[in-house]
């Protein structure tokens, strides 16, 4: 199944507010062995927790199975560091879509904003949606 080019430019409903806790940040840091102390630098890839949730909602909406998605590219551009206590929401926008060799190459931008609605981190991902083998 190919994705529909009318998705390009659409922004999907933002995720429910997510409270960043010291415990979750510590768990995330420990999973990659990254040094972290409470109040210290939150691991740079932590916003993927939010962006991934936004992507899952998007995939459910468009009817794509997660196992057919391979990550092609990821960028994090910070306006300010995340801190424990932040309450963040994330909205995914489809930036681009092209088809290559039976795969959909999907460009997404998921903006992470704080409780004031101020942008904290803009995350961009390229997602490769692998077509059915032999289809």
């Amino acid at each position, binding site marked *: 199944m190919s994705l529909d080019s009318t998705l390009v430019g659409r922004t999907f409903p933002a995720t429910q507010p997510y409270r960043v806790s010291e415990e979750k940040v510590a768990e*995330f840091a420990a*999973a990659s062995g990254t040094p972290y102390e409470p109040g210290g630098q939150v*691991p*740079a890839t932590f916003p993927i927790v939010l962006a991934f*949730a936004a992507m899952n909602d998007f995939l459910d909406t468009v009817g794509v199975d997660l*196992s057919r998605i391979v990550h092609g*590219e*990821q960028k994090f551009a910070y306006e300010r560091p995340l801190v424990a206590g932040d309450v963040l929401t994330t909205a995914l926008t489809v930036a681009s879509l092209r088809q290559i060799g039976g795969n959909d190459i999907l460009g997404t931008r998921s903006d992470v904003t704080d409780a004031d609605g101020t942008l904290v981190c803009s995350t961009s991902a390229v997602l490769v949606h692998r077509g059915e*083998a032999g289809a």
Partner: protein
Amino acid sequence: MSADLSTWEAGQELEPRTYPVTRAHLVRYAGASGDFNPIHWSDRIATTVGLPGVIAHGMFTQALTARAVAEWTGGAEVVELTAKFTNPVVVPDDDTGVEVVVAATVRSVEDGLVTLALTVTSGGTKVLGNPRAVVRA
């Protein structure tokens, strides 16, 4: 403890870091990140979608590059982090797994920002395309 990045110069190479990646790491990362894509824990499903076997989350490899940056810089503020996932890191179901090596050259130091050009390899193959980090000096 922050490193004194103001003494860093363009062209300077940072000591490469080597990290093991086993299935256990992938399971732990899946739980911590919420990324339960079965291509990161099921050989059956990974091969069904045309992969050689279970592969590491691209985001786990990028998390390891961020770890290296945090270790080199003493936890400097990261302003930007980017990478393409050009080659999968296939992780065998054994006790040793594979290694990911993160190396870096200081690309520039200007306007209070340090740009690192990274090289991330596994088994001698580059696994990330154009990985880069920008940190506040």
